[in-house]
C-alpha cells in the first residue's frame, strides 16, 4: 500500500542512490520500505577510521512528521550512544524536522562519532574517558573499530 510516508521514503532512497554522501550507505530491506539497514564508515584520519558500523532505521507512518528510530547494531563505545545502540542526538528527538532525509540523518550520526557532546552522556564511562583520558578513549574506540569487521 502506498502512503505518504512510503512515497517520501522512496524519494529518500532515490536521493541516497543518486547522490550518496561520502562514507555512508543505506537501503530499505527487500520487502519492507519502512525498515532500513545502513552502514556508516568511520571518518578518515580519526580513531574511527576504518570502522564499518551497522545501523537500522525503523520508520513509522507518521514519517516525515516524526523521526525514525535509529539504532546501532554494531557494538559502539561513544558518549552519546546507549548500550542498546540507541543514539542520543537532538535531531532524532526534539529537534527533528522533515527537512532531514535519510542521507542527512546518517551524515549527522557520522559527524557525531568524532564530535560527541559530553554534556548529554548516554554512556557515562565513554563520556568521562573522552574528557579525562583521551588516550584510553581512543584505544577503546580502536577496539570497537576492529570488532566492527568481525561482527555478523
Amino acid at each position, binding site marked *: 500500500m502506498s*502512503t*505518504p510516508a512510503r*512515497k*517520501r521514503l522512496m*524519494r*529518500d532512497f532515490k*536521493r541516497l542512490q543518486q547522490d550518496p554522501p561520502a562514507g555512508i550507505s543505506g537501503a530499505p530491506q527487500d520487502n519492507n520500505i519502512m525498515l532500513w539497514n545502513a552502514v556508516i564508515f568511520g571518518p578518515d584520519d580519526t580513531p574511527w577510521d576504518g570502522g564499518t558500523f551497522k545501523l537500522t532505521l525503523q520508520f513509522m507512518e*507518521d514519517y*516525515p*512528521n516524526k523521526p525514525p528510530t535509529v539504532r546501532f547494531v554494531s557494538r559502539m563505545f561513544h558518549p552519546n550512544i*546507549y*548500550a542498546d545502540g*540507541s543514539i*542520543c542526538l*537532538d535531531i532524532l*528527538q*526534539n*529537534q*527533528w*524536522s*522533515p*527537512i*532531514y*532525509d535519510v542521507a542527512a540523518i546518517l551524515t549527522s550520526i557520522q559527524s557525531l562519532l568524532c564530535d560527541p557532546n559530553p554534556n*548529554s*552522556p*548516554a*554512556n*557515562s*564511562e565513554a563520556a568521562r574517558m573522552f574528557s579525562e583520558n583521551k588516550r584510553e578513549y581512543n584505544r577503546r574506540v580502536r577496539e570497537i573499530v576492529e570488532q566492527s569487521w568481525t561482527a555478523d
Partner: protein
Amino acid sequence: MQNHEESGASCEFEDWGNFGDEDIMNQQSEIRAEEAQKVPFVADKFQKRCGAVPEPLSALASEYQSGSPILLEKIKMLGEQYAAIRRTRGDGNCFFRSFMFSYLEYILESQDRAEVDRVKANVEECRKTLQSLGYADFTFEDFFALIVVTIIFSKFVIDLSLASELAFLGSYSLGSWKAFFKEMNPPLGVEISQYLTMVSEFINLNASFCIHILSPDTFGWSVVMFFRFVASGEIRKRSEFFEPFVLGLTNATVEQFCKSSVEPMGEESDHVHITALSDALSVPIRVVYLDRSSCDTAGVSVNHHDFIPSGNLPKAASGSTEVISPFITLLYRPGHYDILYPK
C-alpha cells in the same frame, strides 16, 4: 565515585543509563503532550468540545478572577474592542495554527478572490526561496502542494458561494467531486476523501471547514510544518536583517536558530517567526499583548503590535496614506497565542 572498581562503577553507570537524557526528554514531552491535549487543536466556536469554546471575553476574565488586577483591567479594555476568543492548543505550534485558522477564515469571510491569487503567488515565491537556499525539493514539496491545493480549494468554495450556489454544493455527486479533485491534481498523500469530508464540513459552516483542515487526522501537522518552512526560508534569505533580532533571543547564529527554533515541530514562536511569516506571505498580523506590564503613568493600556509586511500589499496601491488593517488578530499571553475576534 571515581575510585570505584570497574564492576561496581559500571553497575552504577547502568542505573544512570536507565535514566538517560532520552527518558528525561520523553517524560518532558509526555507531560507537555498531556497538558496540551486538554485543549483541542483549535477550539470550535460553535460547539462545546473539551470545554473549550470561543468564549466571550468574560470567560477570560473569570480565569484571572483572583489574579492580577492589571490583567483584569486589561481584559475589560479588550472587551471594548473584541467580541470573542478562540483558544488553540498550547503545544508549541499555537502561533502557526492560529495563523492558518484565522487566515482561512479571513479568506472565506471576505470572499476576496484577489487575495487568494496573491497568497498563491507568495507561496510560489517561498518555494523558490527554499530551493535557492539549497533545501532538497522532496523534503518540502508535499507540504507546499498541500497548501496550494487548500488555497485553490478555498477559491473554489468562494466562487460557489459568490454564485449563491452553496446549496448546490450539497447536491454535487460524489463522482463529480472526484473528477474535480483529479483535475486539481492533489499532492501526494492527500486522499480525495479528505477533501470530500472538507466539502461536507464546509456546507455546515466555514469554521468547521477550517477546523477540519487543522485536525491532526487531516493534515494539521503538515500545515504547521509548511509555515515553519516558510518562516525559516524567509529568515535565512534575509539573514542580515534578522540577525540582530535572533541575537536578542539567543546567542545562536541565524542558521542555528532556524534549525533549532523554527524548523522543529513544537518549538515556540517569537516575534522573529511572526515577522518572517508575515513578510513572506504578505499578511498583516496584529498581536495584542496581555501581560502584567503597565506601560505609562496615564494608567493601564493594552499594548499591541502590528506586523505589517514590507512587501506588496493589495491595498497599498490605492493610496499610500491608507492605514493597513491586519487580517488576523492574535492574543498573546506569555508563552501562548489564541485568536481574537474584533467586534
